């Protein structure tokens, strides 16, 4: 096969995957509102994606806030503007680091598990067994996870923002000795509601995106145990890269 044929084949696969993922998202999104309602499963997956990710998100955002404050302080010191450290850290966290880091952590912890679990169910015919029992597998397996992702990511992001800012405050106030009053005042001056909400809106998109991609890859896995491994890897890579790309696009839209 020549180069252009291979390129065309790869391009077609990408187009098919994009279309497939979008249809899968629409089905998962709307099936949630069909009977029987899966409220119990929604709560179960909110716990799985949200509560169980709390500690990792807490630690990641705390140290990200601390290292951001440390590095930004070095840069600001060169131009004598250390007083704005609190505001810069808070802006960085609420607009970018909070939602993106939270999404990446959730992909690593819950997204990969979703993909592996659905993939394993696919190759052991458990998904077909659901169909045979007249249960819609997407409505049962994916819809509650999708809505759990949509509902929980903003909450985790809000926690990440808060903890990250606290980390930045600790470094600013106790390590590089900036006046705590100035730190706090600059945060309040520089951060607007729009900054916080842009991060929250992003996190809603990221929650839907990561569950859809990870769910899609697992749901349509094939090729035995190796296929499940491949599907999980692809799910993590595509959703991580996709979130970084879409973060840029959303930033340009919001600001």
């Amino acid at each position, binding site marked *: 096969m020549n180069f252009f044929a291979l390129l065309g084949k790869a391009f077609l696969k990408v187009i098919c995957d994009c279309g497939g993922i979008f249809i899968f998202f629409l089905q998962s999104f709307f099936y949630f509102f069909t009977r029987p309602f899966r409220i119990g499963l929604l709560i179960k997956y909110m716990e799985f994606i949200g509560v169980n990710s709390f500690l990792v998100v807490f630690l990641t955002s705390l140290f990200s806030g601390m290292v951001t404050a440390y590095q930004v302080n070095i840069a600001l010191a060169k131009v004598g503007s250390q007083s704005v450290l609190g505001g810069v850290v808070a802006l960085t966290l609420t607009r970018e680091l909070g939602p993106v880091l939270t999404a990446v952590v959730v992909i690593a912890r819950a997204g990969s598990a979703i993909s592996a679990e659905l993939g394993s169910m696919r190759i052991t015919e458990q998904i077909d*067994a659901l169909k*045979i*029992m*007249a249960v819609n597998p997407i409505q049962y397996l994916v819809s509650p996870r999708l809505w759990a992702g949509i509902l929980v990511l903003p909450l985790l992001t809000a926690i990440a923002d808060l903890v990250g800012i606290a980390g930045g405050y600790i470094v600013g106030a106790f390590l590089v000795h900036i006046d705590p009053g100035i730190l706090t005042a600059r945060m309040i001056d520089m951060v607007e509601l729009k900054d916080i909400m842009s991060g929250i809106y992003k996190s809603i998109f990221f929650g839907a995106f990561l569950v859809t991609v990870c769910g899609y890859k697992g749901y349509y896995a094939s090729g035995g145990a190796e296929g499940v491994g491949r599907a999980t890897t692809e799910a993590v890579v595509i959703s991580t890269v996709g979130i970084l790309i879409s973060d840029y696009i959303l930033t340009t839209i919001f600001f």
Partner: protein
Amino acid sequence: MINIKDLKKSFDGFEVLRGVNLIIPANQITFIMGQSGTGKSVLIKHIVGLLKPDSGEIWFDNQDITKLSEKELQKIRKKIGFLFQEGALFDSMTVKENVMFPLKEHFKMSKKEIEEKAEELLSVVNLLEAKDKYPSELSGGMRKRAALARTLALQPQIVLFDEPTTGLDPILQVSIMELIKDLKERYSLTCVVISHDVPLAFKFADRIAFLHQGKILVEGTPEEIKTIDEPFIRNFIESALI
């Protein structure tokens, strides 16, 4: 009764089913036999709508199943059970929870009633002692019996068995087939069994159909099949009886 008319199915240009015509009579055990890779599982997956044919019809309950939407198929699937080769039990649930699952999904029963019904079904397949075990803790035969109990939970009219005896020792094979026969009598089931096992087919089948090169080569009662003078059938039967 299921009436399959001129069913064709290809995968990546390879024709697996090349015009299958078969009538599956009600309240009987029909064995579908043939060499590995001839499309026996593909054929029965069409009957429950897990696969869509390229052309052809499958009539059940005055409806052509191949033309039904996924939503319409859900109604049909409550009437047609399917026993997967490996059972396809939910590995995150115990045996009892597996059997309770379709009851919870489709019947308005209290939790106590659902538990009682699940235990009754597990008794029918002689698996009550393993009700709290997970599928990974079960032997092959126990997994198939648990899956059978789950299949029966929806009170189907027809049950399709995809190689129910494969991988089991001869005593367990006979015990599974006796269970299938017993259930057929007890619940007036129509059973379709995919199998390679000629002695079992001759002992338990009401009718046998041979799938060869994508078509039903011959079909009849075990006695008729024994007397058919067709080279492939003779070779298949004699090879199995060596």
